[in-house]
Every structure is written in C-alpha cells, then in structure tokens.
C-alpha cells in the first residue's frame, strides 16, 4: 500500500488563482521524494497542504490509507524542516528540540534521552545550552533537523531546507540528509528548485510546472527520458538545446531538415514519426550529445560566441541559425583563434511535438 496518496488535489487562492491543478501522486513507504520546479510552480503549496498548514480546495490526501484533509497538522504525524528553519529564538537548542516532547507529556528522563540522541545524530551536542542567535546558519539547520527527528515522525517534510546555506555547506548538508534518511528510513518529501540537489537526493523526482506535474521518475529517467520540453529544459546544466526542424521522407528514409543541416533519423522511430512527415517538430540535444567532429563527418558548424571554462570541461556557447547552442567539451579549453566549430550528433536526441511540447520519441 502507498504511504501517502494525493488524489485530484487542487488549490485555488482567492477564488481565481489556481495554484495546484488536480494532481495525483503516490508515495511509497520509506521513499525519498523530491518536488522540483521553478518558483511559483506549486511545490511548496503541495507540501503545505500535506502538512496541514494550508486548506485543501478540492481533492483528497491520504496518509497510510487514512483521509487527513480535515486533521490538524499535529494529528497527521508529520514533521517539518522549514526554509527559514523556524527554530524559536527565545528557546535554547535543548528546549527547541524538547518542546514537542514536553507537549506530548513525555517524562523528563525520556525527553533528556531523546534530545541527547538526536543531538548526537545531528552533531550539535555541544550547543544544547546555546540560543539560536549564537549559532551559525549550518548549525541552526542542524537544530531544525534534530527537532524534526525528535518527534520520530512517519513523514518528513522539508521545504527548501538548504537554500539559505552557502554553496559548500549545502553540498555537505545534503549528504548528511541523505545519510540520515538511509538510517531512519522515514518517508521524506523534499521541496527544492535546485536540480542538482534533487538529482543527488531523490529516489524519485516530481517535476512541477504551473500547478501541474510534468513528470515523475527516478533522477536518471528524468534526465535521460524527459517526457516534455519543459523537463528537458529545466533539468540539466546547461539545459537541452532545442532546434526547430521539419521531418521529411526520402526513399522511405526519414530526415530532420532545416536550413543548417539534414540529419538521418534512426529507422526505429519511423512508426512514431509517421504522422509528422512534412511537419515541424523540435529536436532536443543535450549538450553532451552534440560533439566536436571532423570537417568530413560534421552535421553543421556553429559560430563560437564564447567558451566558459569549468575545469574538468568547458561549456562552448555558439550560434546555429541565430539561436544559442551550448555544448560541453573536454577538448576545447579556451576560444583562442576559434571562430567556428564542426559539430555532429552522437545519435542521442529527443523529438518533441511543437504544439503539445510532449515528447514523440
């Protein structure tokens, strides 16, 4: 059975602003699920409805098969890490962690024991008597994690918990969170707009856009098998290069043709592309799937605009038919004397319907 299920979940603000549009989602017990999307896509609203901090306009939320729509947050068995951490400034670290336990009327010894345990797990044992203002951002983050763990929740909710940390700390904290999840095994929903965070943490990623779910899948599925142009564009850095082409048929062989090139299409796609002959479609090339080539084998030339060195590789920014193209290469380090580069496809590409922006193959 699913641990958490969202059915037809809808949120409308102020009568006419549609924040969440009929989403369905099932989450397995112990799963680490990441809600990923640009700001305003409804990911935080979805999480807040699951937590009970936001009313549900329509649809149902089930936790372990039980309808929780009308339950108070504290009756849902959830625990949350907030974006601002929201650790209470007038309480010591100890009291912050112990507060929920005190409300539950846990015995003093049991509280002490629990607080010590989670403080040790979160590496904040020596700060228990300090106030939040005396701690660094990373330490405050750990307090928020410890507080959330202390109540031993069935479901962890994390609302962009790493976004206020500096880049280096963010990476190390996310490893810690992942480890913690492995140890505790609690089902976790994690909201972020940072794709690398999502990719490295998630069992499955839910990509959201303007209140709807674009795609649900493992990090690899999301990247290598993007179902829509939005996903192909949003996931990956640099993002997918989109090129407008027309499908043409010559001697039973299909080609993608535009003013710059004519690319033979693998025969295995023939069935799917059958209805698209002589129509415009969009080709999506991931940056690593456009490779440098010799002049003989090249598909097209790009005018190099600039080269961004990244150390292990470089990002080459070029132009094709006055549209920007980004490719990655470990051969070109800088753009000394480079005006144009011959490029070919390595045979991996997405083809999208121009109207629906859905993937054809």
């Amino acid at each position, binding site marked *: 059975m699913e641990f958490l299920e969202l059915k037809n979940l809808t949120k409308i603000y102020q009568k006419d602003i549609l924040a969440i549009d009929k989403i369905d989602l099932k989450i397995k017990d112990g799963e680490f699920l990441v809600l990923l999307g640009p700001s305003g896509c409804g990911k935080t609203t979805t999480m807040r409805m699951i937590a009970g*901090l936001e009313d549900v306009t329509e649809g149902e939320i089930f936790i372990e098969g039980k309808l929780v729509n009308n339950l*108070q947050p*504290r009756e849902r068995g959830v625990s*949350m890490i907030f974006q601002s951490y929201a650790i209470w400034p*007038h309480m010591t670290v100890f009291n912050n962690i112990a*507060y*929920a336990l005190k409300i539950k009327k846990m015995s003093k010894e049991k509280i002490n024991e629990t607080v010590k345990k989670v403080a040790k797990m979160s590496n904040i044992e020596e700060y228990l008597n300090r106030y939040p203002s005396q701690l660094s951002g990373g330490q405050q983050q750990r307090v928020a994690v410890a507080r959330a763990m202390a109540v031993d929740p069935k479901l962890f909710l994390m609302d962009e918990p790493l976004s206020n940390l500096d880049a280096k700390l963010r990476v190390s904290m996310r490893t810690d969170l992942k480890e913690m999840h492995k140890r505790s095994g609690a089902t976790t929903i994690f909201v972020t707009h940072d794709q690398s965070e999502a990719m490295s943490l998630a069992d499955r990623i839910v990509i959201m856009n303007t209140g709807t779910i674009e795609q649900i899948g493992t990090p690899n599925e999301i990247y290598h098998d993007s179902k829509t142009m939005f996903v192909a564009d949003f996931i990956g850095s640099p993002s997918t290069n989109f090129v407008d082409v027309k499908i043409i048929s010559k001697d039973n062989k299909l080609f993608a043709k535009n003013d710059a090139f004519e690319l033979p299409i693998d025969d295995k796609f023939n069935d799917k592309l059958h209805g698209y002959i002589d129509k415009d479609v969009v080709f999506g090339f991931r940056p690593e799937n456009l490779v440098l080539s010799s002049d003989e084998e090249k598909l097209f030339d790009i005018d190099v605009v600039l080269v961004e060195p990244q150390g292990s590789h470089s990002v080459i920014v070029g132009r094709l038919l006055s549209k920007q193209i980004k490719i990655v290469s470990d051969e070109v380090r800088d753009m000394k004397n480079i005006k144009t580069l011959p490029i070919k496809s390595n045979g991996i590409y997405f083809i999208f319907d121009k109207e629906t922006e859905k993937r054809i193959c």
Partner: protein
Amino acid sequence: MKNKYKKWFPYFLLTPALLYYVLFWIRPVLRAFFESMTDYDGSFSLMFFSKVINESMFTAALRNSLLFALISVMLQFTVAFMMALLLNKKFKGSNLLLFVALIPMAVPPAAVAILWKTGFSTFGWINNLLITLNLIKEPILWMTAKGYNALLFLILIDTWTVLPSVMIILLAGLQNLNKEYEEAGLIFGASRFQIIKDIIMPILKPTIITAVILRMIAAMQVWMISVMMFGYGRVPFLVERIAYYTDMVPMLKESYKMSLTYSVVVTTIVMISVMIYLRVNKKKEKEVRI
C-alpha cells in the same frame, strides 16, 4: 587637524538639540526639584512634601492614579493583544475592521470626554439607546457615579481612546514575526493557546514591554478626562492635582510650589513603577533560561 575636526563634529551637530534640552527640559526639571525642596525663603525644607501628603485629596489621588494605571494597563493590553492577534489574520473585512478600530486614535482627549459626557448625561444617547432597546425603563444617572464606579467609568473611556495605539504597536510586532515560528508550533503539536503563550508572547516580548511602559507612563499622568467628565476634585488623580493648582487656584501663595511638588512625586512614582516592571521582567527571563 583633520582628526580633531572629525572628533568634534558630532558634538557640534548635537549642540542645537542639546541646547534645547538644557533650556526647556533640564532647567525646569531641576527647578521643580529645587522648588519642591525649599521653603518660600529658599532654605531647604520638606514642608511641601508633608503638605502634599497631608492634603485631604492626596490619598485618594494616589490610590486612584495607581489603581487606574494598574487596571487600565492590564485591561488595555489584554484587549489590544487579542485584537492584534485577530487583525493579524488576513480575512475578509480585516482591513475595514482595522480602519474602524483605529478611529478613536484620531479623536483628541477633550473631544473624547465631550463625546462620553453627552453620552452619559441623563438624557444622553446611551440612556436613549438602552431605553429604545428596552433594556431599562428609567434613565440611569451615570454622571452621579462616585468613587470606584466613577474610576471604572474613566478606565473604560480611557481604554476606548488608547486601545488603538496599544494595538497598533502589538500588531506591528506581530506582522514582523516570522510566520514559520507559528507554523512550526502547529506542526510540533502546540495548541493555539500554547502557541500564543509559549511562542508568540516570548518572541514579542520587547514589543510588549514597549507598549506596556508607554501605557504605564501615560496612565499615571491621566487627568484630563476626569476633569472633563466630572470636574476638579470629584475623582482626583495626582496630575489632576497639578492641573488644579496651576489652573483653578493659581493665585494662592502655595499653589506654585504645591504643583511642582506634585510633579516631583508623580515623576518619582512613574520612574519607580517602570523600574519595578523592568526588573520583574528580567527576573522572569532568567527563570526561563534555567
């Protein structure tokens, strides 16, 4: 040279304000202390303090002032805090409610007294309203209220007047509060009441202290509504006595010194009460920390 200039420049900028304070604040205050502690001929004497204390109205004025301050501050804080909590929730009509709640702030004290005086007169609008609603048969003689009833009356009128100013301070504090503190409380199992008691009030403490101290000082100095409603001497307050001596009987030989002595007494009481309040708060804070 340049350093010297830099060092003195701030003081130079402060001079006008400083001059103002010395002339119009420090000088009169020192003067008041001096006058209250000397005889007519200028020799040191506590005669006027004993005169003030032995005056027939003094005990009543002191009792009224303290009671007024204590009850009105508690009442105003409680009601204002509840109103602020309510108005802080965004709901339909909350802006209109805020607007209505702020109206009394725009009415000057003299107008307030007139408003209520006409209301509470035997054939005023309050009696009219009560009779129309069939709640009473005969008009109530409000204005003949004496002693504690009259004091309670004044407390209610004062509360009506100053509630918005207390509320607006608390509301400003609430609006600055990170909403996630409250939400964390909800998630981690606190009830509405526990959230207010354990989370909102302690975090809002600096704002609360400011609001309460401002009210305490103002409440100790109440006089005008009493005089406007009941005239001098009916419900005496400490500052009402000052006004009495400077306004009603300025020609008496002792009036000048009596009013200054009262001023010194009021100032001292206000300072002591504020100090006690701050001390109590600090002590509580220490207890919480342990």
